[in-house]
């Protein structure tokens, strides 16, 4: 039989049992739709974390105080006071792969203006802090180097803080706020960044010169972390080694001593954070894959029933000249049609489900074309694989027995 006729015969056979064909396809439809949706969700949450990390700054590196040993006693990293302004100077002068460096000190407290008050966090940095965090000022100006070094009582406020203290949309530049009773003059408003993927409001901040936060707010001499920009993403490895070298020297660490600080790059952070979602994606995908497999077994089951039910038809087709291969192809095409049609509907449904999840979660959910192609290929393979045995059984029937079958 020629391919066109084979296809027509298979389509007619499926049409004759519309409900059964649809229910059989349903297994594949659900399987494919869930594979596509799960992979899209996984990809979406990964992308949202990556976007988040990218929005933190460009080619960013951090130095965090690490574990350290004090007279044989291990101290936790939070209690470490090892990072100082001297480290910043060393990095500035010694590391040529670093283009910008800023200390970071932070403190939580109540910001007050007139009768309004708002709990927020103040971050202290150098003039380059905004550049490293790829943050810009929409109204007013950034503080200068002189202000940063000279404990000037100036600050930049995030949109949330401005809204809460002064009212929605009002530009508070030039006003004065008090943070932990220290008056700060607002010299600028930060560009709005919105929520990050953990639901944290990134605009709920005050940024001030680090010296001011250190001396007036926190009354401490050390700094909590150092933030830097590498010249390029490719050079971040080099930058890390340069920073480690510089800090080991300023911290006077001997050859056999471990670092008492940790240098991390943005990529590392991204990898750590996305690895969790990757594992999740694999798990979700695997579960969805199992449902696809179950769908395939459903096809096999129905094809076996169909072969038994149509034994006389098979006998008749053989008696009028159908060869084994014609019968084999007829049933194989039927099962491939079931799985491929099911797959196509499943793909459409997967797109729909992904769009719904996107609308509900506001994650940037993207259906990967690779997963669509994968689903389609898997469907065809399922059709061939699970259709093969029933089709073989049909093709190997003896026409005499098949015609006599009751």
């Amino acid at each position, binding site marked *: *039989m*020629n391919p066109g*006729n084979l296809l027509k*015969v298979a389509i*007619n056979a499926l049409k*004759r049992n519309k409900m059964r064909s649809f229910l059989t396809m349903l297994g594949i439809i659900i399987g494919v739709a869930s594979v596509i949706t799960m992979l899209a969700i996984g990809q979406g949450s990964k992308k949202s974390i990556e976007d988040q990390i990218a929005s933190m700054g460009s080619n960013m590196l951090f130095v965090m105080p690490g574990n350290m040993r004090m007279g044989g006693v291990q101290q936790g990293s939070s209690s470490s006071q090892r990072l100082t302004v001297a480290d910043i100077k060393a990095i500035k002068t010694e590391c040529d792969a670093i283009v910008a460096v800023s200390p970071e000190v932070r403190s939580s407290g109540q910001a007050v203006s007139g009768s309004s008050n708002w709990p927020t966090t103040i971050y202290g940095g150098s003039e380059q802090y905004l550049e490293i965090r790829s943050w810009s000022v929409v109204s007013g100006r950034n503080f200068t180097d002189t202000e940063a070094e000279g404990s000037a009582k100036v600050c930049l406020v995030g949109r949330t803080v401005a809204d809460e203290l002064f009212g929605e949309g009002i530009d508070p530049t030039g006003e004065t706020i008090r943070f932990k009773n220290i008056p700060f003059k607002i010299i600028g408003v930060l560009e709005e960044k919105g929520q990050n993927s953990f639901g944290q409001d990134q605009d709920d901040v005050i940024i001030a010169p680090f010296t001011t936060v250190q001396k007036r707010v926190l009354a401490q001499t050390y700094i909590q972390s150092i933030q830097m920009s590498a010249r390029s993403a490719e050079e971040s490895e080099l930058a890390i080694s340069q920073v480690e070298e510089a800090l080991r020297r300023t911290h006077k660490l001997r050859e056999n001593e471990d670092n008492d600080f940790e240098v991390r790059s943005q990529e590392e952070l991204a990898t750590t954070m996305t690895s969790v979602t990757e594992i999740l994606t694999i798990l979700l995908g695997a579960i969805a894959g199992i449902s696809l497999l179950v769908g395939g077994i459903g096809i096999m089951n129905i094809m076996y029933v169909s072969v038994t039910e149509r034994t*006389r*038809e098979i*006998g*008749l*087709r*053989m*008696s*009028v*000249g*159908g*060869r*084994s*291969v*014609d019968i084999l192809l007829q049933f194989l095409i039927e099962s491939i049609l079931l799985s491929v049609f099911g797959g196509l509907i499943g793909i459409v449904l997967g797109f729909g489900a992904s769009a719904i999840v996107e609308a509900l979660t506001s994650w940037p959910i993207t259906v990967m074309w690779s997963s669509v192609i994968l689903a389609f290929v898997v469907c065809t393979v399922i059709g061939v694989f699970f259709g093969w045995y029933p089709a073989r059984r049909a093709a190997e029937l003896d*026409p*005499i027995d098949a*015609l006599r079958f009751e």
Partner: protein
Amino acid sequence: MKTIIDITSLKKDYHVGEVTVHALRGVDLKINEGEFVAIMGASGSGKSTMLNIIGCLDRPSDGIYLLDGVNVAGMSKNERAAIRNLKIGFVFQSYNLLSRTSALENVELPLMYNRLISTKERREKAIAALEAVGLAERMDHMPNQLSGGQQQRVAIARSLVNDPVVILADEATGNLDTRTSYEIMSLFQELNSKGKTIVFVTHEPDIAKCMTRSVVFRDGHIIREEDIKNRLNAAEMLTALPVEQD
């Protein structure tokens, strides 16, 4: 006259477990073009086996079988399928029409397995075959919309459509009442009078009398072979039947 079926010392053994069943124990049979042969015999006599072998559904264990001059005894499964497709038409007791498939498509079926025939040609031949059995106006009907006799006519049209050298009918009137049986036999006689060679398995002597020759099987042998004298005309029988007034 051309010999269509030429069988010489044909044997067929079946192996059922340890036991060997001799279904045919050396059969010689010649059927010429234009004959209408009744194959008769009790069940287990070997007549079904004979029909299966003549129809190339089965292969003999031994012997020679020339169909239309070609030895088909040693052919492979696929070769036999091709021979069935081109040279043989089957009519079964239970019609064996595809359900939920129109009469026309049922008749087209054998031609679907012939790659050399185009869609248009297939349709034309199928319509011609349905016309030959007087069912042209029912070509779009499904089998369940047709009576038993009409279904058997569709099956006969299907057996004609590939213009076979021989039509093999296996108890083709077995499921039909007397009146319809004679209708079908009259159709077979009409086809035969137009030159079709027909081999017809039956156990009803009345039906066999409509044919030109009878061959009787018993225990794997042909025990009697005779030309039928006083041949019945099915069409006349039909008019002679009393009309049921109910």
